[in-house]
């Protein structure tokens, strides 16, 4: 009877130890899973962040393309205006300049 009583108690203690180990192991596994989840969540947020930056980048690219187009157009227009003004002015003064050049060529001061 006495040995029988002791045996029952030992069995209960062993079972408790096993349950304790199971509880601890479960916590450890949950921890590993949580860390893995951390990596997964981080990667998800990183992907979202990258997508956001890519979107903003593409928006900036297309906007700057529009800007560049406008700049080129304005530059071309300014250039044509300058050249037109240049030609107009040259035509206006050409006769006088040529006369003056010839006058100097044929004026000899001795």
């Amino acid at each position, binding site marked *: 009877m006495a040995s029988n009583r002791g045996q029952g*108690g030992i069995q209960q203690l062993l079972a408790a130890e096993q349950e304790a*180990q199971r509880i601890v192991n479960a916590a450890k596994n949950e921890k590993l899973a949580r860390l893995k989840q951390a990596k997964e969540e981080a990667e998800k947020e990183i992907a979202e962040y990258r997508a956001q930056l890519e979107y903003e980048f593409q928006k900036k690219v297309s906007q700057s393309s529009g800007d*560049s187009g406008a700049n080129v157009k304005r530059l071309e227009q300014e*250039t044509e205006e300058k*050249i037109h003004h240049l030609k107009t002015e040259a035509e206006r003064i050409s006769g006088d300049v040529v006369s003056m*050049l010839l006058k100097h060529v044929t004026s000899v001061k001795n």
Partner: protein
Amino acid sequence: MKDADVSRQIQQMIRFIRQEAEEKANEISVAAEEEFNIEKLQLLEAEKRKIRQEYERKAKQIDVRRKIEYSTQLNAARIKVLQAQDDAMGSMKDAAKKGLLRVSNDKKVYKKLLKDMIVQGLLRLREPSVLLRCRESDRKLVESLIEEAKKEYSEKASMQSPKISLDDRVYLPPPPKNGAVDSHEPYCSGGVVLASEDGKIVLENTLDARLDVIFRQKLPEACKEAPVRLNNITAI
């Protein structure tokens, strides 16, 4: 020891074991949450920094490329304006060159001009002996002017009359054919070339050379006499 006591003691030990396990599990859970946050934040920050740098680099590349592109276009535009400027000046010079062709056609004016140019050359050279070259078509005219030029030079320079040798073997090029001043054939619109006897000093006093000098050096100055200023063009 009574059975009840033993049983109670065993139950107490069992509760203690479970409590220990649950406390440890709780510690692990807390640590897990803490490490979860740390891990996640570290990963996020590291990757975000990388991504941000990547896109900053991309944006910078776009900016640089755009600046280079604009700079190239701006430069091309400037060259275009300068080319138009050069064309305008070239047109004026061509018009002046064509005008030179008429100078030697006016016999009276050209005769005096030629004499004055010879005297000017003599005054510049101040050589006792001078070699003179002219267009073949001007030879007779020049021969008729030499004595007068020598005399005028002597008076102005208070020098002895120089010896002038007219080169009858080599002449200056003839006038341009059909008034084609833009052809590549050498031509001379009029005037003379004088050289010291040893040939070391050469003075080119042709109409074309005079036009070149005046065009390059005196045009800005000469324009002050004009009703309008050429500076309007160069100021653009």
